[in-house]
């Protein structure tokens, strides 16, 4: 392990029965049709997930009460092969606007013949989520829970980068 690989990245993949351009379009334009509704941060039930197309596009959820909660932003928009978005939910389950504290999700789309596409996902820089003042404030204020895990991550990350 190198001194930059503080918290190992997460990986996932899926093979889908769509040509690569349609797979990219379905992943992005139709994210609200497939994102599991139980994974959301807003106070009311989630009715939609929206990923805006193009660089700097927003990634957010819309709740049943009409409220919107930010999740991140598009960093790289290279249809139909590559997408990088940030995941900016901090230790208090709030959106953190500081890009220095953003983890990143890269999704790569590779054609496997004319009708199939391999979708590979990497969630990286998880340690960045824990480095910011907001998280430390949360720990001081609330203690325990999620924050303590993030705090532990920060300690491990700091120890390994020394």
């Amino acid at each position, binding site marked *: 392990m190198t001194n930059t690989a503080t*918290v*190992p990245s*997460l*990986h*996932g*993949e*899926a*093979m*889908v*029965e*769509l040509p690569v351009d*349609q*797979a990219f*379009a*379905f*992943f992005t*334009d*139709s994210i609200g*049709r*497939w*994102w*599991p509704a*139980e*994974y959301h941060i807003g106070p009311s039930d989630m009715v939609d997930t929206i990923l805006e197309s193009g660089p700097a596009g927003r990634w957010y959820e819309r709740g049943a009460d009409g409220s919107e909660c930010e999740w991140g932003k598009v960093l790289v928009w290279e249809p139909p092969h590559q997408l990088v978005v940030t995941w900016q939910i901090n230790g208090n*389950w709030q959106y953190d606007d500081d890009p220095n504290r953003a983890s990143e999700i890269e999704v790569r789309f590779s054609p496997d013949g004319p009708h199939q596409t391999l*979708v590979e*996902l990497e*969630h990286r820089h*998880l340690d960045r989520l824990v480095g910011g003042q907001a998280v430390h404030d949360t720990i001081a204020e*609330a203690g*325990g*829970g*999620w924050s*303590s*895990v*993030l*705090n*532990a*991550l920060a300690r*491990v990350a700091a120890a390994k980068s020394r």
Partner: protein
Amino acid sequence: MNAGEGGEIGLLGDPTRRAIFEHLARRPSSVGELADRLPITRQAVSQHLQVLKDGGLVVATAVGTKRIYRLNPDGVDALRGYFQRIWDDALTSFQKASDQAAISPEETP
């Protein structure tokens, strides 16, 4: 440090257990507090907590006469396990939805 990873992801595969984990992520709680917020009995909460505790994701501390459960601060892999579960579920869901879209091409963008 990855030795227990598969096991931890498995621990969070159960939706009720994941709900308990998420509640504890927001706030350390007693069995009674968890049972009040979830549609399951105290006994079921206790059983799930025991599994999470045995798996190293959750720890208990005595506060007066109560036992308060919280995420294990030393369980660094717990966060990774949690996110891994999200991506596994999300990609499975994406795969199913796209196969559906492939069958009904008029619905694809």
